[in-house]
């Protein structure tokens, strides 16, 4: 597994790019806030997640230099996300399928007081 040897030393990100990303992030924050005020049913969740993913990617690519850095770091990050997906996905598959056996609202100690 030979690593990709890129430019030695670290990449200095131009201030212009930093500021542009910052502006973009603030705009997207406003956008996701605004989108949440429009009732689109279950679509709201996916819009919010889509915007969050976009924002996260901007931070990763520019603030965290991933765009210019060794590709192995990106591999580490994406690989990790795959394992997170595996974990959350595996748990979701099971919990959604056994819900019918749960006693709805069971919580005997919550109303003991």
């Amino acid at each position: 597994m030979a690593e990709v040897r890129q430019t030695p030393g670290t990449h200095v990100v131009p201030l212009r790019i930093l500021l542009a990303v910052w502006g973009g992030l603030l705009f997207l924050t406003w956008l996701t806030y605004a989108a949440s005020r429009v009732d689109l049913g279950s679509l709201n969740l996916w819009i919010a997640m889509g915007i969050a993913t976009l924002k996260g990617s901007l931070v990763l690519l520019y603030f965290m230099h991933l765009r210019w850095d060794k590709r192995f770091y990106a591999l580490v990050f994406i690989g990790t996300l795959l394992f997170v997906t595996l974990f959350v996905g595996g748990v979701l598959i099971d919990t959604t399928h056994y819900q019918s056996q749960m006693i709805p609202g069971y919580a005997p100690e919550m109303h003991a007081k």
Partner: protein
Amino acid sequence: MSATHGGAGEHHDPHLAHHFETGEQQADSAKLGMWIFLATELLFFSGLFCAYAAYRANHPEIFIWSDQFLDKTLGGLNTAILICSSLTMAWAVRAAQLGKRRLLAVLLTATMVFAVAFLGVKGIEYNTKWKHGLLWGKYYHPHVEAAAEHGAEPAPAAPPAASGKAPADSSEIPPSAVGPAGLAKHPRGPISDIPETAPKNVQIFFSIYFIMTGLHGIHVIAGIIVIGWLLRRTLGGEFGDGYATPVDNVGLYWHLVDIIWIFLFPLLYLIR
């Protein structure tokens, strides 16, 4: 490569540890280590996202109902604050790389100020929840009178409490948690399908809310501490001249803390 091999003390670069051949090898090692550390952080938080997803998928009504008690304005403000801190942090890395120590010190200070502001806003939110008894798990005891002043705008008068008597309890199935009868829902916005009475087990939402934001808050505090440590080293004249690895790595950590919040904000505050 082999020229510097064979013992400590031969290196001229004070930042180069004895077991590395070159500064680049050392910086790369540190950075790779940092990225792997970020991977562990992601998986650490993944447990909470997983708990969130499991309850959210199976009991959406809890989340939709509870959402009204979170202040979207304060949440949005905090998002903006963290984004600003990320900018100053990224800029700080640039300053360190370019050897501008004064600018670096200023930017690190700014990052810390933003971080403290974030915690301040968080504190205001926590305090409101505390006053209204909207706490986690077994401490979830919402007060009717407090609810009237909850939120950014005054809520309409609380509807009458649900029938005073506890429901019949003759079966083997224990009764559900009694919802916080009388809490007012947020009156704003076009979303109108929030039910009048609380669904069962709302306390789970607040458990998840507090544990997620709490753990994130602890990471912010840790961030303030390490940025403070960077600031001390900066004032001691340490960074620059091609040596910016610690600033770079702390920056990576700080941005990850930001990214986690970027996801927490819509998941907790903007859920629909």
